[in-house]
């Protein structure tokens, strides 16, 4: 399949875009990455995802697919050779989808809450909630990995991609707040997993360095503060 047949509209810092990049890399799919300026959206992006106007969008041939989890499953189904991203058993697939929804809808928003916490008390409360979630994910990892290195077992799979894409932002959150989120004394299995994940060849180089993301956090906060100032005048 020629590289021009598969395009990914994305933005490097977006964990949802990174997710799709992992899937494409794992499947060794040649593709063209077209970086998007989210402050000034391109015609192509608006045409390809008119409903949400967001990245990532995968364009395969001339067909656009949006929503990161929809895209990852599409990739798994179209390029169905090994490695498989989702497990083959329907119950295991349901378990993976359950945790994916939990991670996206319940857990990762807590990382944002931590970044936005202004005083020590709310930071501590946010970290506590994060830890509760991580305990659940630690158990999920132990059950899913069955003694091997990844959620997917011996190889990276769906859940590895779903959680792993957030590792840069988790690390950035730790640097920004000075608090530990992934703590080997609390969730040792996840800490070990995170190291293996980050050094996997399909992942290496995809997630921006935490320092770059910390700078982005500072930029967002400055912008938000300026907007608040302007609107209160």
């Amino acid at each position, binding site marked *: 399949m020629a590289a021009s047949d598969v395009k990914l509209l994305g933005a490097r810092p977006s964990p*949802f875009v990174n997710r799709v990049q992992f899937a494409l890399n794992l499947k060794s799919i040649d593709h063209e990455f077209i970086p998007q300026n989210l402050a000034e959206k391109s015609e192509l992006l608006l045409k390809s995802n008119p409903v949400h106007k967001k990245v990532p969008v995968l364009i395969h041939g001339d067909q656009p*697919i949006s*929503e990161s989890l929809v895209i990852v*499953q*599409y990739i798994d189904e179209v390029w169905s050779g090994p490695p498989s991203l989702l497990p083959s058993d*329907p119950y295991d697939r*349901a378990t993976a*989808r359950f945790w994916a929804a*939990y991670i996206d809808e319940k857990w990762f928003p807590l990382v944002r809450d931590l970044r936005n916490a202004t005083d020590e008390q709310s930071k501590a409360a946010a970290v506590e909630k994060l830890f509760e979630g991580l305990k659940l994910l630690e158990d999920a990892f132990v059950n899913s990995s069955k003694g091997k290195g990844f959620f997917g077992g011996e190889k990276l799979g769906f859940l590895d991609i779903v959680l792993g894409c957030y590792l840069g932002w988790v690390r950035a959150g730790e640097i920004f707040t000075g608090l530990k989120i992934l703590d080997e004394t609390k969730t040792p299995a996840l800490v070990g997993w995170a190291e293996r994940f980050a050094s996997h060849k399909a992942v290496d180089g995809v997630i921006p360095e935490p320092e770059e993301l910390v700078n982005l956090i500072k930029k967002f906060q400055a912008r938000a503060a300026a907007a608040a100032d302007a609107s209160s005048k």
Partner: protein
Amino acid sequence: MSSRGSKMEEVKLFGYWVSPFCRSVEIALNIKGIQYEYIEEDLTNKSPQLLQYNPVYKKIPVLLHNGKPIVESMVILEYIDETWKNNPILPEDPFEKARARFWANFVDQKCFPALWKTIWSTSEQYEQNKAEALERLKVLENELGGKRFFGGDSIGMVDIVANFIGFSFRTIQEALKLDVFTEDNFPKLWEWAENFANCSPVKKCLPPQDKLIANFPPAYMGKTLVSSFQSRLQLQFHPPAAAK
């Protein structure tokens, strides 16, 4: 291998009669012709089984298949489609399947919360909430286009997930004298809703209209009683998902 009525299959559904998430699962089971035992949960007094089978969210619906629990309605729908291969609710073509998943997510995460908010609006909030709901319904009306159902000739995952729009919302809106989803504004969706509610897998599990109306009495709208009733129900329903 027969997937119906087999001695090895044991299918139970823990639900709550008002919940459209529960209804989604029932419709899918009916489409596939699966026999199941329905267990109505008292949400103010959840059963030990519910808490055991769904420890993370403690919510309905919970599907139990041969003793193994599956939770979250969208996850359950995919599980049902992958386990029982007859009468598929998702298209086979990967691109069409991706489209169906995209639109199912849109209905679940954008349409349902917007419509739900209009029901529980105070009179000050109503116009703004209505505007948001109208916007979402317009997108859906465009997507439906000339098709009989979102799934084509027969109902599929998107239709199932949109069951609240197809039936309950119109009933509730009429009882509360709201004017969000009208035939004039959304002629295609209106016709879709009529066809949807008349499909036999759907008809089999719709609540009686009078029971539904009694559950949303107009006297509650805009009053402080709403908040306790609302919070009891919202314990069960998915809060609007965080934007991706």
